[in-house]
Every structure is written in C-alpha cells, then in structure tokens.
C-alpha cells in the first residue's frame, strides 16, 4: 500500500514539475483551424505578380518606365518579326498607350539573365520535364519595379504559325503566344478567365491574339 501511495505521489510530483518547467506538450492540441488567418496582402493584385513588404503586398510592374523595349535577338528567325511586333501592337492599341516597343538587334549577344536588357530568344533546348511549355517569360525586379524581362520561345517542341497563314492547324500561333508572353513581361500572372489572353494554355491552332477587357482592366491598374 505504501508503494502504491508512493508511486502515486511520485507521478503527481512529476506531472506537476513537467507542467511547471516545460509546458508538457503531450495531451495539448494547437486548435488552429485552416481559416484562422490573421494577415494577408493588402493591395489589389489586379492579376499582377506581387511582392510582400512588411506584410503588405505590392504589385510588380515597370511603373512609369514605359514604353518597354524588347530586342528580337538573332536566334529568332527574321520571318517571325512581324508576328512579334503585331503582338506588341495589340497591347498598345488595346490600352491606347505606347507601352511595348520591339526592335531586332542581331548584334545583341547577351544570354538570358539579369542584364537589364529585355530580349526575345528562340530556344532549341528546353527542359525535358517541361515539353508542353510553349514559351517562358522570366522577369526580375527591384523592390516592386521591374528591371529585366526575357522571353524564350520553345522551338524544340513546337512549330509556329503566322496569323495570315492559310491554316493554323497543328501549330502554335506565334502572335497569340507573344501577346501572352508580353503580358507576363509587363507583370501579369496567369488567370482562369476565358476572355483573357493570360489563360495558362494556348491550344495548338487557336487564335487568341486580342487582349480582353479583363486584361485591359488589369493593365490599367499599373499603366
């Protein structure tokens, strides 16, 4: 009986010490639900990429540094220049602003990267785990202002059509693709909206070269 009493006393003392010294996690639950969010971004994203500064989200854009000039590098077949320029014009006419300029520079030798030059590359190499990616735009910024954008076109896995080709079937329309990539280059993210050129996927043979009202609204948040 003494042993029994002694063991109870020891257990009680241990439990008391445990509670006092460590808080003893066992047996307690956090009781935090998924909806217990107490802080989130503040600025309306307007479908722009955002960054967080002291618990505030800020849109990433070129701010007042427009128009933004893109170099068509020598890697891009010259026959596609008109398609790329037409894509830039689609944004400019939609927004009624001179927002995007395009010019070929065969002397431009920089590789894609942070060089503060915006360039378009025709890539015959592409990551093997991304064969369905038709193109890719990388943008870099300082605080919340864009400083660099590079567009790569996946020429390894796709062939491209021009808008006035007799048939677009089986090919990716380059003007439509560049309208989308220019959207990224100006700071836009993907959007699941059927009237938007910023939908994730551009179907082969499809013509989607006109920014929609939702795209114009997005762009008008910053430009």
């Amino acid at each position: 009986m003494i042993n029994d009493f002694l063991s109870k006393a020891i257990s009680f003392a241990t439990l008391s010490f445990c509670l006092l010294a460590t808080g003893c996690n066992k047996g307690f639950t956090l009781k935090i639900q998924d909806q217990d969010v107490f802080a989130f971004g503040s600025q309306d994203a307007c479908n722009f990429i955002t960054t967080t500064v002291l618990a505030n989200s800020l849109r990433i854009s070129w701010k007042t540094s427009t128009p933004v000039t893109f170099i068509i590098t020598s890697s891009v077949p010259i026959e596609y220049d008109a398609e790329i320029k037409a894509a830039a014009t689609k944004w400019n006419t939609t927004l009624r602003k001179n927002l995007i300029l395009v010019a070929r520079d065969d002397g431009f030798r920089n590789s894609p990267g942070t060089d503060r030059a915006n360039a378009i590359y025709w890539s015959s190499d592409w990551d093997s785990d991304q064969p369905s990616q038709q193109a890719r735009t990388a943008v870099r910024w300082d605080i919340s202002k864009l400083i660099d954008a590079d567009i790569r076109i996946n020429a390894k896995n796709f062939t491209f059509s021009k808008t006035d080709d007799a048939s677009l079937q089986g090919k990716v329309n380059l003007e439509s693709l560049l309208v989308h990539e220019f959207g990224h280059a100006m700071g836009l993210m993907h959007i699941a909206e059927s009237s938007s050129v910023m939908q994730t996927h551009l179907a082969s043979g499809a013509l989607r070269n006109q920014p929609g009202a939702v795209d114009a609204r997005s762009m008008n948040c910053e430009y």
Partner: protein
Amino acid sequence: MKKLLALFVVLDFIFVGLILKVISSTPSRTISSVDDSTYNQLTEGQKTKWDLVKTLKFEISSEAVSLITDNLQMICDTSALIELQFSAQNVAIAGAAPMVSHTFSCDSIRKDQAANSLHTTFSDFKNIQQTKKIDLSTSRLAGFNIYTDEELPVKWKLTAVRISGPSTFTINEFEIEKVLMTAFEFDLPTSVK
C-alpha cells in the same frame, strides 16, 4: 505505517500548494497581456496561431537555413507533415515565383523528442535546379518553376509553413511579418556547390 501515509498526504498538499502559488504569480504565457489591439481582436484560434508564430525563429548559417520552434513536437502531436515553402524574391517565371518545397515527416520528428528545428541545406537548394526533386532520409524537396537554363535565383524567402493532417493550417508570410516584424529571407551563398 499510518504515520508514513499521513506524512505523504501532508507533503502532497504542501507540494500542490507550492505549485499553485508559483503558477498564480507567473505572468500568462500568451501575448494577451501585451498591449496590442490587433491581438485582442483576434479569435481564439487566431490568437493560438499568433502565439505559435511568435515562437518561430529563422537561423541562417553558412550551410543551411533553419526554422526553429519549441512547439515542433506539439505541432506533430496533431499533424503528419510540415512543409516549408521557399519562394524566390525579385524573380518570376511565367508569372509565378520559382519555389522550393521542403516537406518533413512528423513521424521522423516525433522519433527525436528533442528536435525543435527544421533544416534546409544550401547544397540541396542548389541541386534542386538540376534534379527538380530530392529524397532525403526524413524529408523531401521539390522545385517548382525552376529551370536548368535559367539563373537560379539568389534571394529567397520562407513564404509559407503548411501543416497538414489531421490538424491542417498554413502560416503565411504576411502572418510571419505581422507578428515578428521581420521576413524570413536569405541569400543563397555563391560559394556553395
């Protein structure tokens, strides 16, 4: 024997009395005693989460980043996985930031009751650019929006701590910055291979 029993009873009462006195004179563990109107307006769940975030520490060494919390075991008492989500800063590809996810198994964490930190090494971070996935003995890394032909971003931030199953919730970067008034940011050292 009766005397011995009586002695234990008396000792027990004294011990309990001492504990009650200490507890009553110790300031509350929660932040509610702090003059913070934001905190006072939170629900009980949000307050618990705020208190949890307050325990988070982020350490950067020459080889790794570590998320430290004395509540790691407590989290694993009610959950199965802890995912640290690191996002590249100042870079977006196809409209989204490159991201590295590092998922830890609570089974492994529970095996070491003294464990209070989660480590991600810079070498794993860099290797993910080529391998896209890395399986370690107690955790798994996966890279998203990371390409072999793009520059691996240098500036990174812990943007989310996702805790899942059975208790599931996410601590986002805004919550971390609101509570701790700092971001869990780091630069990848250029010397690490």
